[in-house]
């Protein structure tokens, strides 16, 4: 059974903490018993093997136990967080051809219900034929429609067979996200402890680190930038923290430099993960460098036309509702534009976010880095806007620390950028905004 190696490891961990949730610790022994309980309950209730089961939950002890119990039963599991709207959930249930649903409430009580219908998609047919459990994640890209990403769960679990360092780890990324699933599997497969931070504000997360002596914080550059802005580092004892791992978007150089200054004892580690291929192991050239090696066992990389391509053993089977993004010879086209230096890559940004100004390419992250160093700038997002003269122009949407006259600020920003950047990179249009510039998943929003 695909989860047997995990069950053996959990048994060996005995009374060690597996999960901290609502300030209570749950041991590996508890988790193991719970997985057995749910396996039994799932079978008793008559959930067929290979059923498509929506698991509507945030990180919790029973959510972890149920995810593994369902995989053990051979099901296709579709994690969804309760935070998504009813209509979004309906959309996912239909797209994922869910025949059963488990809902876990805020009290960690779970309810299992039959939804009827059957799964017909050929990718589900492939899973059934192979006898493997599945995992479906919905990529809710900041632009465009959600895509259903179908994984062979058994294949994905292979990535966790080799135990790594057992660390007390904050579950920051969400339960329905490849990064969140990876945090959980990685932590539990290594005998670490998963600390669920229910308050995901900078102070909430840092408070959880301090109280539960967390060693690893996997998060996003956008969240780290908010941590800096909120000045929360000064308010919490972060002496237990050893590693901050970040992924999902390019790290602003200014943010990294400032964090290293404030947290000199912490190692910074860049991960590279995508819903479609899983999380690649990566190694930064050094803690203050944005150059990383990506790959590791089971992964190969190559660069074609400046765009990173990946061949992965644990790649998804395919999308439920979109054409295959694989080349004919089986490479996944990531859409991430990279620079290459020997074995190292530097991520310049998404190909789809690249701004073409009269034939010259502009990477938003490069401009954002410069805008962010300007005095009185709290946050900056750079994006392109169509323009009849140049094709596209560079625009900046900026959050200020203190109010400032728009025209005066715009002039200041342009002069600052003109001194450092090439002329076509300097933002033409500048907008000052009061609202937050990230999604509720702490990912930057780059839409006009």
């Amino acid at each position, binding site marked *: 059974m695909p989860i047997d190696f995990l069950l053996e490891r959990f048994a060996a961990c005995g009374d060690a903490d597996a999960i901290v949730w609502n300030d209570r610790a749950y041991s590996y022994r508890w988790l193991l018993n719970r997985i057995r309980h749910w396996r039994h309950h799932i079978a008793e209730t008559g959930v067929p093997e290979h059923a498509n089961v929506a698991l509507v939950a945030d990180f919790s002890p029973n959510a972890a136990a149920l995810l593994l119990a369902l995989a053990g039963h051979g099901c296709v599991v579709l994690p969804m967080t309760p935070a998504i709207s009813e209509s979004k959930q309906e959309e996912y249930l239909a797209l994922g051809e869910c025949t059963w649903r488990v809902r876990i409430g805020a009290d960690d009580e779970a309810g299992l219900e039959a939804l009827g219908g059957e799964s017909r998609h050929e990718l589900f047919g492939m899973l059934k034929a192979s006898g493997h459990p599945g995992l479906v994640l919905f990529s809710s890209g900041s632009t465009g429609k959600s895509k259903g990403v179908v994984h062979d769960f058994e294949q994905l679990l292979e990535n966790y067979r080799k135990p790594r360092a057992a660390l007390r780890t904050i579950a920051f990324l969400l339960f329905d996200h490849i990064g969140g699933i990876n945090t959980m599997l990685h932590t539990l497969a290594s005998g670490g402890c998963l600390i669920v931070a229910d308050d995901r504000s900078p102070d909430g997360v840092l408070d959880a680190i301090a109280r539960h002596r967390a060693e690893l914080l996997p998060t996003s550059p956008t969240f780290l930038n908010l941590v800096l802005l909120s000045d929360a580092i000064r308010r919490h004892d972060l002496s237990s923290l050893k590693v901050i791992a970040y992924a999902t978007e390019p790290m602003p150089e200014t943010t990294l430099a400032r964090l290293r200054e404030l947290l000199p004892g912490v190692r910074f580690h860049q991960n590279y993960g995508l819903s479609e291929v899983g999380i690649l192991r990566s190694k930064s050239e050094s803690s203050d460098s944005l150059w990383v090696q990506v790959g590791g066992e089971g992964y190969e990389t190559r660069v074609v036309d400046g765009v990173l391509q990946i061949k992965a053993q644990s790649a998804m089977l395919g999308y439920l509702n979109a054409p295959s993004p694989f080349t004919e010879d089986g490479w996944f086209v990531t859409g991430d534009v990279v620079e290459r230096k020997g074995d190292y890559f530097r991520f310049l940004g998404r190909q789809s976010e690249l701004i073409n*100004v*009269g034939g010259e390419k502009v990477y938003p992250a490069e401009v954002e880095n410069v805008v962010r160093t300007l005095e009185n700038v709290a946050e900056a997002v750079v994006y392109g806007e169509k*323009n*009849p*003269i*140049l094709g596209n*122009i560079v625009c900046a949407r900026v959050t200020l620390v203190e109010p400032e006259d*728009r*025209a005066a600020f*715009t*002039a200041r920003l*342009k*002069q600052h*950028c*003109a001194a450092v950047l090439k*002329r*076509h990179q*300097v933002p*033409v*249009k*500048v907008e000052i905004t009061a609202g937050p510039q990230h999604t509720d998943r702490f990912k930057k929003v780059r839409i006009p």
Partner: protein
Amino acid sequence: MDRSAILNLIYAAIDEVNPTLPPDRRIDKSPETQLFGRGSRLDSLGLVNLVVATEARLAESGLAVALADERAMSQKQSPFRTVETLCDYIALTLQEGELG
């Protein structure tokens, strides 16, 4: 908004844009100043910056006007020849807005 107000608004936009331009591309605040075309100092990037800066100032006066759009591009004579023709084009666009 009368012509002299529009002219002042364009001058303010010139003040904003000039410091970001190489010295040999900076332009004078005068109705005769050539903006774009033969013998002008601005290149396309300079022109776009000036037009967007002008639009932003109009917007601050409560006037949402798109100056660089298909309509401007399809005028028989480009509105971006001189400061004066730009001023005329803005006045015309505002007037049409009032009538429409």
